[in-house]
């Protein structure tokens, strides 16, 4: 098992080349740019969840809450504060990140199933706030009436609103920033400590590692990353709705991470790609598309318990 999920350089280059060229090869196989953007955003969300799940070893079943808070934060900022995309992303990230860090301090004292239950509970609190607060969030109808704004970068003016291509590269840039930060964190001694906690929490405690503090920091960072993804999601749809906060989305994110391979840094991105593309494709053919996702998930868990990407690596290291 490679420490911190370090990916070899040629593989890394291949991943980035594929992502950079996606708008050009996607149409050839029947995709479209907005689908690629969706994969990136949900992939980032699943990777953020996996920061906690795969590298710290605690399962949060309420991460959609922070994702949705990021989405609502970005939307509310664009609608009521200022017509600025960077500000919206910052506001969304901070809203989810700060609330996640604050509540995380309460959550991290629980482990295992209790941890998962408490995260669901807090997630549903935010879901119902968004659902009932009609005047601010639009309730069940969702938050409308905002749109991502073009970005002024010195002399350049990037129109991410009307050009789906420009927006894809904007999201890819944000994705690269977040993923780069995540990889650096995991490579640092801090990341090593997280792995130690994941492998054997009791031993880590005996070694004098303040486990609760580390889990809390990992939780807060994970919330920060996922609310950043949530902000991007709101910009993608120009829309936010309570289902962005619902625990069923948390479940989808866990499925993406587990399906792609939760011990692998890039696994969740693959999981998200499979999930999103399958949903997009199969739901046009049949209304029972969830059965197919479920079937695939069952198959993956039965035959590739380490996920689609985890299988090869797991065997070679075992």
């Amino acid at each position, binding site marked *: 098992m490679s420490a911190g999920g370090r990916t070899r350089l040629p*593989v890394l280059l291949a991943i980035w080349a594929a992502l950079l060229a996606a708008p050009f090869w996607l149409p050839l196989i029947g995709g*479209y740019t907005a*689908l690629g953007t969706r994969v990136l955003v949900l992939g980032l969300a699943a990777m953020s969840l996996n920061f906690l799940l795969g590298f710290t070893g605690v399962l949060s079943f309420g991460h959609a809450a922070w994702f949705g808070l990021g989405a609502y934060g970005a939307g509310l900022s664009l609608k009521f504060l200022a017509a600025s995309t960077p500000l919206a992303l910052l506001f969304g990230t901070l809203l989810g990140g700060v609330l996640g860090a604050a509540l995380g301090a309460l959550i991290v004292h629980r482990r295992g199933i209790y941890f998962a239950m408490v995260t669901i509970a807090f997630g549903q609190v935010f879901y119902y706030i968004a659902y009932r607060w009609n005047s601010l969030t639009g*309730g*069940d109808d969702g938050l409308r*009436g905002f749109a991502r704004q073009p970005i002024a970068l010195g002399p350049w003016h990037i129109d991410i609103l009307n050009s789906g291509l420009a927006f894809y590269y904007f999201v890819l840039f944000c994705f690269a920033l977040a993923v780069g930060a995540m990889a650096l964190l995991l490579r640092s001694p801090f990341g090593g400590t997280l792995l130690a906690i994941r492998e054997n929490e009791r031993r880590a405690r005996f070694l004098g590692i303040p486990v609760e503090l580390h889990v809390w920091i990992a939780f807060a960072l994970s919330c920060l990353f996922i609310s950043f993804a949530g902000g991007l999601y709101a910009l993608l749809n120009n829309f936010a*709705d309570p289902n962005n906060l619902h625990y069923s989305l948390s479940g989808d994110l866990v499925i993406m991470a587990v399906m792609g391979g939760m011990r692998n840094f890039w696994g969740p991105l693959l999981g998200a*790609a499979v999930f999103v593309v399958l949903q997009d494709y199969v739901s046009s053919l049949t209304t029972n598309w969830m059965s197919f996702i479920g079937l695939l998930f069952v198959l993956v868990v039965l035959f590739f318990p380490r996920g689609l990407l985890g299988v*090869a690596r797991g065997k070679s290291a075992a």
Partner: protein
Amino acid sequence: MNGIGRRTLLQATAAAGLVRLTSPFIISARGDSPVRIGMVDPLTGAYAAPARNEVMGAQLAVARLNAKGGVLGRQVELLVEDSANDVGTGVQKARKLIERDNVSFMIGDVNSAIAQAIAQVTNEKGLLQIVSGGHTDPITGTDCKWNVYRVCNTTRMEANSVCDVLFKKYGPKWHFITPDYAFGHTLQSAIEANLKTLGGTVTGAELTPLGTSDFSAYLIKARSANPNVIILLVQGQDMVNCLKQIVQFGINKQIPVAGTQQELESLEALPPEARIGNWMFEWYWNQPDVPHLAEFVADIRKVNGGKVPTARHWFGFTSVMSFALAAAQANSIDSLKLAHALSDLELPPEVKLQPNKVFYRGGDHQLMLSAFVGEARAHGPQDPEDLFKVDRVVAGSDIAPPVADTGCTLHWPA
């Protein structure tokens, strides 16, 4: 650990192969290809039945158009996507239809909130949309858009058509069972406004989440408020569940139930003893002396397992037909020209299938369709599906508030 191992290569190939396998293989031919119509409707969830019927109606219209040579000489293709009764999914599907499939025209959605959200997308893309089944007022009111027209009634029109009947029949104290989203909120406030001018009072309102299956707590609360009538504003599967439970608990023996919009889909899904109350239908299949109606009913029966068309069939049918009528008039499928052509367009008899003048009002893009006010009945006298006794048919222009009162100001692109 360095260099590309066999495993790495394998896993990369597997990943690439998987992405290919799961990707849709769409042949993207442009040019003299068919005119594509996108339709987003909740084919799963609480509104599955009405949504499927809208799709069926739209398919009939497409088949009829194609049999006569299509639209402007091009065949018509209908692409249907399931919004799963979820706003986010609806938005995503609308974007997919526009960005990938390059549709020329959009229809949707039964759910008001989704219809409004899709309207924002089509407006952003400058694409003509007809809202086939979402009733909330702002769509052709405060939130109206140059590219958005609506076939079904506004909640104000529904309330105006039936409130005086209910008031005279049942009395002044009303209690609401309201679905907790855009449609329910605007419908309730429209009825409250009517009730106030009539001199009645509201004893309370139970806001129920969409997709509620157990209404007992709400019904017990409504009964204890002791109103003259319980007004049901829930729709689709929620209406079915709610009426069934009202009859099970025997609440209808103490307090009558009624409402505004009722649908044949719901009445048919109910046991005979639960087909009760005064309502309005937006369109009805059994009308005397309406030209072309029999042909429409027969055509739908053929594809609907022998069952008659509902208002939803007619909505889907009329949405597609309106697009064809506008295209013929504008001699173009450019959205802006189509939107101008639809303004004040009157539906011909073979499309409107009802008495009174039916036209798209230019000021707010709302179709002025008739309202069928009457009473539900347990069994149809001649046809088992004739479950609604129509007492009167009101012209849409008589129940719609004037454009100035809708709050609609249209901003056309320069």
